[in-house]
């Protein structure tokens, strides 16, 4: 009786959780409703996890002797994993967000692979379809786990250079095929056919091969492409979870996993498009690999100006568009930038932020960093919505951004960034660029002609320090006027 009630409660809660996840994700499509959306999804998750403890009353006879030990272990694992991740999630710096997401994602992939391992070692799969689903879930989950760890290491600068060598693609291909072959051998062995190794040995080899493949596949990819890679692994984990959901006959896992699998795939494609890359290029044609970068002939020179002069000029402008880049985040200048903007707004200047889709180290990260500094989201504009407005704007202020405002992307067919959508800062009547040093190249290694433009003026220095000077200058002006 208790067993049947438990099963019904688990089924109903799972159904509700799947519904709440989809409703929550739907609400995440606007900044106004997004925070409530994730809370709705959180309620679904909490209910599903609590209901899962009712599995306690449904276990089969074989697991009965370990009943309470298992329950204790479950509570312990939930408490440890949940607490550590919660604490790290609450304390991580916003600039370190991409690698944090990579770690959480790898954990999900690892959990899916672990579930598959239990099903495989215990030979619980019911029929070939479930066995094959378990195997694919295991391989995708394991690749997502080890790949995400490498992605984290790269973004956290533990691994600095992409590791590339001759014949890398061939080696990766061989490891992949060998792992799949071991998977095939497992299917044969489970069906009672001949096997060279005992089944547990095959399973270890299979999981090990998948983990190694995840590492090998991620190592050659450069840091700039990591966001796309994280997004791919996010989709992979979703699919792995969905497949293990099928093995466990749990529709909530199937639906949640596959929704994320599809959503993650779409997000991956959108991100790659914004970076002027295809997903195939990210994975198999590595950006860092092309060493031939020629410096185009660029007329003119960089014209330095004082921070205070630039600030006062902007104070008397009618309209300013700000283009923040990763350099701003590196110097932690978002707060100072917003303070400066508030001064300009108070003086009657119309100020807007123009965000390139890949500003920051992860698409959308710059939006988060500005939001953290208190910038209201209606001041933040995306590329397509603001690009036509540069031409009618007095000043474009470029801070720590380079490739995303390089006009070569529009004009120079030989440039590696040709075709990438860029912000048309060069069309503004005047451009101020805050930049650490003279010269230098963007992440892509391309020289930026914008800096040599007759209408462009350079303010050298750390973004935070320069903005502090700019605030001083405008405030000093106010004091003098009073």
């Amino acid at each position, binding site marked *: 009786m208790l067993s049947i009630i438990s099963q019904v409660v688990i089924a109903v809660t799972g159904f509700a959780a799947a519904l709440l996840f989809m409703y929550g994700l739907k609400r995440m499509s606007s900044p106004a409703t997004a925070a409530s959306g994730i809370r709705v*999804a959180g309620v679904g998750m909490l209910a599903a996890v609590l209901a899962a403890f009712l599995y306690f009353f449904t276990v089969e006879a074989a697991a009965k002797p*370990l009943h309470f030990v298992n329950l204790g272990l479950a509570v312990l694992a939930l*408490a440890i994993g*949940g607490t550590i991740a919660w604490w790290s999630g609450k304390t991580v710096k916003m600039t370190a967000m991409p690698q944090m997401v990579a770690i959480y994602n790898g954990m999900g992939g690892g*959990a899916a692979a672990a579930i598959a391992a239990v099903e495989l070692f215990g030979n619980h799969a019911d029929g070939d379809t479930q066995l094959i689903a378990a195997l694919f879930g295991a391989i995708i989950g394991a690749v997502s786990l080890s790949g995400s760890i490498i992605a984290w290491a790269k973004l956290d600068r533990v691994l600095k250079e992409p590791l590339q060598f001759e014949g890398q693609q061939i080696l990766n291909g061989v490891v992949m095929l060998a792992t799949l072959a071991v998977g095939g051998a497992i299917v044969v062995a489970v069906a009672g056919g001949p096997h060279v190794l005992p089944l547990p040995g095959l399973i270890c080899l299979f999981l090990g091969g998948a983990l190694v493949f995840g590492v090998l596949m991620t190592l050659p990819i450069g840091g700039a492409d990591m966001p796309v890679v994280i997004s791919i692994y996010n989709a992979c984990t979703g699919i792995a979870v969905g497949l293990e959901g099928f093995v466990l006959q749990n529709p909530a896992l199937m639906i949640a996993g596959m929704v994320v*699998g599809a959503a993650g795939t779409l997000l991956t494609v959108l991100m790659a498009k914004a970076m002027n890359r295809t997903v195939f290029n990210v994975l198999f044609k590595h950006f860092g690999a092309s060493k031939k970068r020629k410096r185009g002939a660029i007329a003119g020179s960089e014209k330095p100006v004082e921070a205070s002069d630039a600030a006062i000029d902007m104070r008397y402008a009618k309209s300013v568009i700000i283009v923040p880049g990763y350099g701003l985040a590196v110097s932690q200048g978002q707060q100072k930038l917003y303070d400066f903007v508030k001064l300009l707004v108070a003086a009657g200047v119309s100020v807007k932020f123009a965000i390139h889709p890949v500003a920051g180290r992860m698409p*959308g990260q710059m939006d988060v960093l500005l939001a953290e500094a208190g910038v209201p989201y209606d001041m933040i504009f995306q590329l397509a919505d603001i690009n036509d407005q540069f031409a009618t704007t007095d000043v474009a202020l470029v801070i720590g951004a380079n490739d995303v405002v390089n006009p070569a992307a529009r004009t120079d067919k030989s440039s590696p960034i040709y075709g990438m959508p860029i912000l048309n800062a060069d069309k503004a009547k005047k451009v101020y660029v805050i930049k650490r040093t003279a010269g230098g190249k963007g992440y892509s290694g391309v020289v930026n002609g914008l800096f040599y433009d007759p209408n462009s003026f350079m303010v050298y220095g750390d973004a935070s320090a320069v903005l502090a000077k700019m605030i001083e200058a405008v405030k000093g002006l106010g004091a003098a006027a009073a």
Partner: protein
Amino acid sequence: MAVNVYAGAYIFMLAAFAGWVIIGNVPAILHTPLMSGSNFVHGIVVVGGLFVLLNATNVLEQSIGFVAVLLGAGNAAGGYAVTVRMLEMFKSSDDKPHHGARRRHAAHRATKA
């Protein structure tokens, strides 16, 4: 509840379509929270981990099941924590704290005039 391979294929197809449509018109401004939010949703894998661990019959299954719950719980809790943190930062100029800021600006302008 039994899901056979046919029903399973339909569930996967419809769920994939739902995911594609739901995410289809998310603005770029939310791409980072969205990635961590969908990351949180696949944390539901912890439920599968709990099933496996509660049904474990030997030390091997207990150990791997323990790891599954540990990792799954980390995925769910961490994904939720960072997503909420990020989304709570997104404020419109019409939101309350900024009304105050606006009034200050207005007052500032008035004194200058």
